[in-house]
């Protein structure tokens, strides 16, 4: 395997001054010795290009790397980690990757470190076709919710190496979306004997001991806030950016629920949510669309229940670290352009995610697939996952309907709150309670 031919040519360490975390550490270690060894020019011009792509298993499909190799001749070397480890590496070891697949909300912490460079929109071929949620904050001319970290707010930089977001589109993009989606509650209709219509059911005593929430403070509290607001117990100014008072009150309600045994477990990674649901340990929890599909593939009834309060939205995007330049930089742009050119988009659409440029993805999907996944139409034949598993039968309709219905109903976005520091302490209190 590629153990030994780890490219040397993509390791051109940027001659940028050390930043953020590293600056801190340099001070810490008194490590003044960090010289300015500027980018070592590539001597392996004839060697194939390798891009080290840091991210999670959400998008790291071998099929995508294989296809990129076939179409571009670029070798994609995935560094696949769980979400926590990926973002820690993104911030503390910027030279260890050539491309980063990052969650939009994490950008709020990554961008100030200076680890990512702005991407020149002129070099992004399908820039004009990227879904407008990311480029103008609108969908079909209507502003999408701005609660939480709406992707548009963190899509642009004020300069190529800027560390501040621009409120208006500039020519420097932070990341180009790979996948995004609208999350809601997944339920086991076979084990739930009444209709579920509201986020309030997450905290309903009817499901005592059989619900779960996500153990990421800034996201878990938003699921809770959706529920609490739906119950009419509280009104939030902005669920994605709570005040200390709002955090306190929310955590109080959550703690009471925890003490009464409302939650079976807290989960962190995709697969845990699948296992909890498939085993019947949990019958109602917030989930990702492909996780629901996965449970269904096992022949277990699982519904991705649209709720009247709307969805919690999120997005992931590809960014280029500041140290990358020259040939590697060209290759990174080339790969991103390829990513937006349809094949990868179609692949990820079939997973149940949405892709940045639907227009190109459409050319790689059958009319039936497109109708099912994007337009909310009944399937005419079996709907298959990219790996060939049956996801849905003819006649069935995607839970939540079309792209516009689902993404248009996003009520808040995954986020880092201004009061993050306070929130994390409160979350630790909550776990200990």
């Amino acid at each position: 395997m590629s153990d030994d031919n780890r490219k040397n040519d993509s390791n051109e360490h940027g001659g940028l001054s050390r930043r953020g975390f590293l600056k801190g550490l340099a001070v810490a270690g008194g490590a003044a010795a960090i010289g300015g060894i500027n980018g070592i020019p590539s001597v392996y011009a004839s060697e194939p290009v390798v891009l080290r792509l840091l991210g999670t298993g959400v998008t790291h499909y071998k099929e995508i790397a294989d296809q990129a190799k076939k179409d571009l001749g670029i070798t994609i070397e995935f560094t696949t980690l769980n979400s926590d480890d990926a973002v820690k590496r993104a911030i503390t070891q910027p030279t260890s990757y050539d491309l980063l697949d990052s969650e939009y909300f994490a950008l709020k912490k990554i961008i100030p470190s200076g680890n990512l460079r702005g991407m020149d929109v002129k070099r992004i071929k399908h820039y004009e076709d990227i879904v407008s949620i990311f480029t103008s904050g609108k969908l079909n001319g209507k502003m999408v919710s701005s609660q939480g970290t709406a992707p548009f707010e963190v899509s642009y930089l004020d300069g190529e190496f800027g560390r501040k977001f621009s409120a208006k589109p500039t020519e420097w993009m932070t990341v180009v979306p790979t996948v995004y989606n609208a999350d809601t509650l997944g339920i086991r209709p076979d084990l739930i004997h009444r209709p579920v219509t509201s986020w309030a059911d997450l905290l309903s005593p009817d499901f005592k001991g059989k619900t779960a929430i996500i153990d990421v403070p800034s996201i878990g509290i938003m699921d809770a806030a959706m529920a609490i607001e739906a119950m009419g117990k509280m009104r939030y100014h902005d669920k994605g950016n709570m005040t200390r008072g709002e955090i306190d009150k929310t955590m109080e309600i959550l703690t009471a629920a925890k003490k009464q045994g409302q939650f079976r477990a807290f989960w962190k990674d995709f697969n845990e949510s699948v296992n909890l649901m498939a085993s019947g340990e949990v019958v109602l929890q917030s989930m990702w669309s492909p996780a629901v599909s996965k449970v269904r593939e096992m022949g277990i009834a699982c519904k991705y229940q649209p709720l009247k309060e709307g969805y919690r939205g999120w997005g992931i995007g590809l960014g280029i670290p500041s140290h990358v330049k020259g040939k590697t930089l060209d290759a990174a742009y080339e790969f991103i352009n390829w990513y937006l050119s349809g094949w990868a988009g179609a692949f990820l659409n079939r997973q149940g995610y949405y892709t940045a440029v639907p227009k190109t993805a459409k050319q790689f999907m059958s009319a039936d697939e497109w109708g099912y996944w994007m337009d909310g139409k009944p399937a005419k034949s079996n709907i298959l996952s990219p790996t060939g598993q049956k996801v849905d039968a003819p006649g069935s309709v995607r839970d939540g309907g079309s792209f516009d219905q689902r993404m248009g109903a996003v009520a808040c976005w995954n986020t880092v709150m201004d009061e993050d520091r306070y929130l994390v302490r409160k979350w630790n209190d909550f776990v200990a309670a």
Partner: protein
Amino acid sequence: MSQPDLNNTMATPETRRRVSGPFWSVLSTPRIAPYLQVMPITAVFLVFFLIPVILVVVISFFDYQTYDILIPDFTLMNYQDVFSSSVTYETYWTTAKLSLIVWAVTLVLGFTLSYFLAFHVRSRSRQVVLLLLCTIPFWTSNEIRMISWIPLLGRDGVVNTVLQTMGIVKQPLEWLLYSKFAVVLGYVHLYTVFMIVPIFNSMMRIDKSLIEAAVDSGAKGWQVVLNIILPLSKSGLAIGSIFVISIVMGDFVTVNVLGGGQVASIGKVIVTDLSSLQFPPAAAESMVLLAFVIILIAALVKIVDIRKEL
């Protein structure tokens, strides 16, 4: 157990030549030898532990903001936050309680099983086989084993199914999984071996003639265990305790998976901080944890000087 036969271990002329020479004679000079002997281990700790830990110590005095995760500074705020928050004490209390229970269980279990291995299993090869038997489950990655606790202990898991089929319980037992019980069970499962190995090793050093003498003079089995074996395997017990206490006090994985994320531990607090990219408080928490456990272990070593009789 047979004592090594001195005749058997005398050198042949070949081996004599192999192990002599100027380099070796320096290495074996009594005054320099210990320093050379501990050099490799010290070098590893210096590069891969001490330097990183010094970085951590420095960072524990840094400031941080939501969007500026490390601000070089000298502030005691992170430590103040640790000590001023009631959750710290609650979490230490929970973690210490868990550690104490796990320590007691693994100690008794580890001692008993080691005793069986060392004194009742007669051949050395059988001892090795049994020890290997206890090791093999650990060669299936913990990542995989952790998932299998759901089908084992879950509502519809093996244990509940068996209990229900046998009519012992009517409803599935909910507390088998995602509870403090499950956490303790997980720890005992993982760490009893960490007790067995050192205890077994120190039992193997016990001079068998002592036991035979005691038996010959009429001591009962339990008297032998209590009066001879237990005191003589003290250092193994102490070393096993160091393993178990320090791992359990800092654990995050087991407590998280088997506690269903709802059982607090110091390790989990630190990991939650780190996941939210709040490095300075995590660094401070780590240093407090280090100090706490080092004090515990220093006290333990005061009681049982594990190096005294080397």
